[in-house]
């Protein structure tokens, strides 16, 4: 874990050194928003009765279907403010800022029916076992973080440009909430007991390293509109959800960059 944060700190230090050693040509303030989809597997700490196989033919050619399965999902939504400095000599843009991220995780029955439920094992003591019928479990976690990004625009065109980006982010957890949607409303009184038995505490830090490709509309010294797709990326931190064990992250981002400073070099270039 320490190694991952050392990489992030090194990345930040290198950026700082680079920024101070260059003559910036254009400084922009950017506003970004986007979402991400995280693939992963269900966290084993929830004891759920389900068919993990999807479908299967036995030796006697009898069909066994897994329509009782429970699926997990994790999505990220974020927005932020991101000052950036553009260096025309190298065709790169360096940005760092502040980003608010909300993570939404769900455990639901795969069936589309509103009345469908799965069995959550709540208690095992001696020869007694207790299940609850649960329609779904969801978890929201809010983070505040710092993204650091380097964008390379290899070929320059007047208004439309393609770019590639690498970045990393480190986020601090602000708060989290886990909720259980019981099939029987009267069972709500056991929610806290279930949550404390399962243990829903998550990591205070969420961090990831990513790469993206995108398209930019706008002149170098004017307002720029960016749309980018995040390539499958690695999540560096662990235990970021009590429902899902995240593995890979992908998504898209829309951002606007407004110039607040136009250096001489850039004007000369125009």
């Amino acid at each position, binding site marked *: 874990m320490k190694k991952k944060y050392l990489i992030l700190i090194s990345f930040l230090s290198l950026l700082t050194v680079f920024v101070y050693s260059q003559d910036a040509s254009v400084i922009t303030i950017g506003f970004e928003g986007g979402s991400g989809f995280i693939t992963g597997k269900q966290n084993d700490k929830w004891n759920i*009765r*389900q*068919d*993990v*196989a999807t479908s*299967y033919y*036995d*030796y*006697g*050619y*009898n*069909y*066994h*279907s897994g329509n*009782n399965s429970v699926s997990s999902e994790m999505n990220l939504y974020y927005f932020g403010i991101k000052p950036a400095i553009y260096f025309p000599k190298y065709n790169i843009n360096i940005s760092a800022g502040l980003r608010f991220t909300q993570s939404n995780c769900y455990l639901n029955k795969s069936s589309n029916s509103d*009345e469908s*439920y799965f*069995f959550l*094992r709540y208690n*095992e003591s001696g*020869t*007694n*076992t*207790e*299940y*609850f*019928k649960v329609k779904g479990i969801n978890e929201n976690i809010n983070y505040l973080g710092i993204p650091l990004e380097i964008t390379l625009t290899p070929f320059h065109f007047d208004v439309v440009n393609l770019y590639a980006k690498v970045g990393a982010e480190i986020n601090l957890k602000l708060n989290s909430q886990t909720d259980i949607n*019981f*099939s*029987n409303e*009267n*069972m709500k009184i056991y929610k806290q007991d279930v949550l404390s038995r399962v243990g829903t505490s998550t990591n205070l830090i969420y961090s990831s390293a990513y790469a993206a490709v995108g398209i930019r509309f706008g002149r170098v010294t004017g307002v720029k509109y960016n749309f980018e797709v995040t390539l499958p990326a690695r999540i560096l931190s662990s235990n970021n959800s009590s429902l899902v064990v995240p593995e890979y992250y992908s998504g898209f981002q829309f951002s606007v960059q407004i110039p607040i400073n136009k250096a001489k070099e850039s004007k000369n270039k125009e």
Partner: protein
Amino acid sequence: MKKYIILPLVIFTLLISSCSEDYQLQKSVFVEDVNNPELPIYSEWGYNTFGVYIDRQPFISNSSDLPAKIIVNKDTFNLVLKGTMNNRDVTMKFSIIGYSPADYTDLISLNDSTFNLTSNKCIVTMTTDTIKKLNIFEGKLFFKRAQSLYVDKEYMESILSGTFSFKTFINGEPIAVSNGRFDFGIGYENFYNY
């Protein structure tokens, strides 16, 4: 007139909803054991499955037949497994003389119980086309875990999970019945005492 239409509809809806609740637990949930291909995993969830190798042939539960029935007749406890082997319907029955639970709630007494299948108090029969009483020379039936299952704080059924294996003769040839495992929910629909 409307009353005569609405009332049966309400009753029908209630019946449907109550049936679907029970059905979730009665269904078979087959999770294949990667270490023993074709067999279900050993589980204690009440998945309503069983599986065993008869030599190399897997004899397993299927999703259409009720995989287990417990029939208590006088002083004899009968565990009847119904499934498929090599695309044929097969039934295997374990009879234990001297054990007679009154109801499925009493099956908890089987928790952590082992029965020696070579004993004269245990009889195992297998039915393919004909009923065969097996002459067992080695083997045991182990009820590893018996549980009383409560769902949303209401008692629902007993769960019986365990293992079995034995050696016998079929058509004069020695046969090994190995890696047997079962996990059944036993309730009103599959417990009989008469």
